[in-house]
């Protein structure tokens, strides 16, 4: 569905025919114009798949952060992944610097490195000042560091007015102009991260009962925290470095999954991928069709849906 609808609409049957044609070399019905074929195959499919993968990656990352930090409102963004990645992207956009051979991938690469670097700094700093790496300290350090990095970003935008629009658009997130190449890089990263995460589902379950209890039951809490926060940051960092900062999905999807399927992480993680992925495809669909032919940044759509949800979770928690 996400593939068919768009500025140029291609109906469902034709879409299926095109898919069959490309994947199984079935003959193409005569009435389908070449333009439709290339729209579907080169633009819509990679875009939809990318939206799905990014949505899934962000949701899993959110689920992990929420459990590790034992905070239903936590996400990778709390630890400054997005701020860090934005600064990385900002540097590339402002200086116009590109690494030879990598060309267009310089921006995602810088975003990823800076995002991971931020989390690394936040967690190491936390470990320095608090040997037990308690959640409150992590969240607090993350917040402070995010604000600090954001200030740098503001400074950069003020200095480079010419590029400000490009930077703002990157920060809002969009799946436009994304082709197969991004998918080929992002998919393996996600696959590896999720597979490793699936090994740590019991630890995740235990961590939601608190660090001390998890330790008492035999979890090497600090080590596991490092691994989980790192994987989670890698998922978010790599996703947003390709498509920009897309918020709220990492918050909303895991909550829905937990409500419906319970909290066991063996189920929460795969279901977060499905729900988050599907949710992202729908948001992207809305983003590019609602005021067609103009495209909205998908980040604003997820935020429009996500912000009320955020409030809902917060207030329903307080009533209990």
């Amino acid at each position, binding site marked *: 569905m996400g593939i068919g609808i768009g500025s140029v609409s291609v109906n469902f049957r034709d879409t299926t025919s095109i898919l069959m044609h490309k994947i199984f070399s079935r003959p193409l019905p005569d009435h389908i114009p070449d333009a439709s074929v290339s729209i579907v195959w080169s633009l819509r499919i990679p875009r939809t798949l990318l939206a799905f993968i990014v949505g899934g990656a962000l949701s899993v990352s959110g689920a992990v952060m*929420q*459990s590790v930090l*034992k*905070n*239903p409102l936590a996400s990778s963004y709390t630890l400054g992944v997005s701020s860090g990645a934005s600064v990385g992207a900002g540097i590339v956009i402002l200086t116009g610097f590109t690494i030879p051979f990598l060309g267009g991938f310089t921006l995602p690469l810088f975003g990823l490195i800076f995002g991971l670097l931020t989390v690394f700094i936040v967690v190491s700093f936390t470990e320095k000042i608090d*040997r*037990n790496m308690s959640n409150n300290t992590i969240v607090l350090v993350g917040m402070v560091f995010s604000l600090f990095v954001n200030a740098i970003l503001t400074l950069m935008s003020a200095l480079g007015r010419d590029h400000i629009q490009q930077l703002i658009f990157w920060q809002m997130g969009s799946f436009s102009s994304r082709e197969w190449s991004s998918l080929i890089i992002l998919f393996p990263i996600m696959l590896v991260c999720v597979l490793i995460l*699936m*090994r740590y*589902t*019991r630890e995740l*379950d*235990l961590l*939601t*009962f*608190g660090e*001390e*209890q998890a*330790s*008492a*039951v*035999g*979890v*090497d*809490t600090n080590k596991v925290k490092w691994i989980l926060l790192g994987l989670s940051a890698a998922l978010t960092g790599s996703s947003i470095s390709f498509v920009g900062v897309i918020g709220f999905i990492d918050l909303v999807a895991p909550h829905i999954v*937990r409500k419906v399927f*319970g*909290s*066991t992480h*063996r189920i929460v993680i795969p279901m977060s991928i499905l729900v988050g992925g599907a949710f992202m495809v729908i948001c992207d669909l809305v983003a590019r069709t609602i005021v067609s032919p103009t495209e909205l940044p998908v980040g604003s759509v997820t935020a429009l849906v996500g912000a009320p949800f955020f409030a809902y979770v917060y207030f329903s928690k307080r009533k209990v």
Partner: protein
Amino acid sequence: MHMFIFQNERFDNMLELNNVSAGYDGFDVINNISLNIKYGENLCILGPNGCGKSTLIKAIAGLIPSTGQILMDNENVGKMNRHEIARKIAVMNQISSVYFSYSIYETVLLGRYVHMKGPFKQPTEYDEDCVDRCLKAVELYDIKDKQISTLSGGQLQRVFLARTLAQEPNIILLDEPTNHLDLRYQTELIDYLNEWSKDGKHSVVGVLHDINLALTLGDKFVLLEEGSIASYGNAETAVTVEKLDKVFNMDVVSYMLNSLGKWKTIATQ
């Protein structure tokens, strides 16, 4: 230090503390604690708020760093990793809030964590049997699929007791576990633990606010005063009128006798 520890070898002292000090952020809350427990013995730690009871429990479990020496089966706990510690020592404490809900069964199964093997830690038949046994012991087997977020404080506490038992430790450290339990379950918990330790393969170290419960559970007692041992030994030598008065800064025995008098009146009515 013994180089080789055999599985079935039983040392005289199951747990031994030599000059243990521990605390938070570099400040010692407990100082130079030395004590020992044999298999089958239960130790109760008594003292007023802030005397370091919980800190001592955490130090024994290796949850906070400590100086001095803590030996479990003659092995230095400070040199063991979390996994090795958790196979021998379990901690049951006051429950905090539940953030994400699990079923009772899933929660208790998590107690098997140190015993589950393989990359994805799938439970074996033995793990599942063990969980069933523990659930039956705390009378929660019939509602094992209920979500823990819907349980009362007392039921939740029993879920955590079942999880602690499922861990199959040699020693259980209790940190005020009776807080949410009503009188019946309090006494049942203590009776159950007494039975559990009296097979000579286990021990319980407990911090209990209720001195009556502590007297029922303990074979040995430690009275803590501002982080140091004020008295230590069996009930006759360690729990005396003047020691209790001094540590709790009130006339504990008169208070207890006074309430006993009231109970006697109730009984004769």
